[in-house]
């Protein structure tokens, strides 16, 4: 299949889906509307809601807030994950002591922490950042830990025979290996940062895409709920695209077959 045909088919799927949606929401089949607009809205209403948000400019503030929360959650969670992952991997005794607690916290569905964070940190951005951090941290932590542990014994011996001391081994061997594992999970980590932010907003906030969706739901404005979902997925796709660009730049040394781990 050529790229053009593929693209045409992909667009066709969207067009058919939207057309069916519009059709069943407006034209009765055997005297019955299959998708009542009150519950399902219509593509045209959703589109006009999106246009309204962007033309009036209201959406920018919410997008910015969600982006800020996601970015902060990602940065803080990653730094913490890298530091703790590195520390545990190099100090097996520390890792052994903390192991059951790490497993326990990781087993906890993070959403239940949202009320606690709202209580501790208020309804501003920091309670959402905290929720995102708990999600991002574990992904980065496990990958960095694995990355340090899985350094090839031969490469390590080679480093030692070339005269590296522990500090140089950390810099030239452990660190690049850990980072490569972390970058391979970059998509997941960034995705979870956004999840943390939006779920946090949904459960209680004054701004952000999650807030927008939650508000619309409160007044049964289904068109706005769908509009919020569309904006959110476009937002995530854009971020994901950015991550792919960064990844391509950072992992040039890796054979193509090994990509997409994690």
């Amino acid at each position: 299949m050529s790229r053009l045909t593929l693209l045409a088919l992909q667009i066709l799927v969207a067009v058919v889906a939207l057309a069916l949606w519009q059709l069943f929401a407006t034209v009765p089949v055997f005297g019955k509307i299959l998708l009542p607009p009150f519950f399902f809205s219509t593509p045209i209403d959703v589109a006009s809601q999106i246009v309204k948000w962007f033309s009036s400019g209201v959406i920018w503030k919410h997008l910015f807030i969600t982006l800020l929360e996601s970015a902060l959650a990602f940065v803080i969670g990653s730094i913490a994950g890298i530091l703790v992952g590195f520390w545990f991997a190099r100090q097996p005794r520390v890792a052994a002591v903390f192991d059951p607690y790490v497993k326990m916290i990781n087993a906890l569905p993070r959403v239940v922490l949202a009320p606690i964070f709202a209580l501790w940190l208020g309804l501003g951005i920091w309670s959402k950042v905290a929720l995102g951090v708990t999600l991002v941290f574990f992904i980065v932590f496990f990958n960095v830990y694995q990355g340090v542990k899985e350094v090839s014994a031969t490469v390590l011996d080679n480093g030692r025979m070339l005269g590296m001391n522990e500090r140089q081994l950390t810099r030239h061997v452990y660190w690049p290996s850990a980072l490569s594992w972390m970058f391979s999970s970059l998509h997941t980590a960034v995705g979870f940062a956004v999840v943390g932010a939006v779920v946090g907003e949904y459960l209680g906030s004054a701004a952000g895409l999650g807030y927008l969706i939650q508000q619309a739901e409160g007044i049964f404005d289904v068109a706005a709920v769908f509009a919020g979902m569309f904006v959110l997925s476009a937002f995530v796709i854009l971020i994901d695209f950015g991550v792919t660009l960064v990844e391509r730049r950072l992992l040039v040394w890796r054979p193509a077959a090994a990509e997409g781990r994690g």
Partner: protein
Amino acid sequence: MGGRMPTAVALEDATVAFRLADARIYTAVEKASLSVEQGEFVAIVGPTGCGKSTLLNVAAGLLKPAAGAVRIFDAPLTGLNRDAGYLFQADALFPWKTALDNVAIGLEIKGVSHTEARARAQKWLTSVGLGAFAGRYPHMLSGGQRKRVGLAQVLIRDPKILLMDEPFGPLDAQTRQIMGNLLLELWNADRKAVLFVTHDLEEAIALADRVVIMSAGPSARIIGDWRVTLKRPRDISEVRMEKEFHELHREIWSVLKDEVMKGYAQSTQAAGAG
């Protein structure tokens, strides 16, 4: 010879044992004595799994012998052997560094400036025939090219001793010959002490001044030591045509053959013995 030069590598009754998972002790090598003089190229040949690599790791300081002594230039070895460069059997290049950076790193960790290290690394890459591949990452190079980078990575540090663990094992026959000739050419320039492990007797005779034979493991011992007097400089593919080569090969093979059979029998009977 009046004043004796210190021996580059001397193993004296070295015994190496490992503790297995079920707490039994597995003796890989028993009472091995071996010496490599300065400027001498010694090859160790033995059946698969006989502990040749173990012996090399002892000389490198990566493994401590359970009994016996290791002397490097007549001084007892403690910790890693700082006079040795080690060329591994498996891929040991840093996959996240380009060929150039892989070679330069050996100098950089010694404190040589980045610019100078890279300039010297470029020269070494050129001398192993990879001048045009400096910017490639290891996964973009062929197996033979990676071995060339590995050779440059080790030699740029100018070690007094070269330890090589079946370095050309994974390569195809033609590439092995080319690499063998490259190694001899580079070695000929300053004649370092070399300890070269291989399972290929022909390769050993073609390269070395002395060929040492090990028995099949466990508790492998050194069971033979032959001097190769073929004249240097040698060409790997031509030296194989000489009469002396054939006579030596026949003589050594008559000893090695039994061990190879023993080693094969053991490896087929007792899987999991190590």
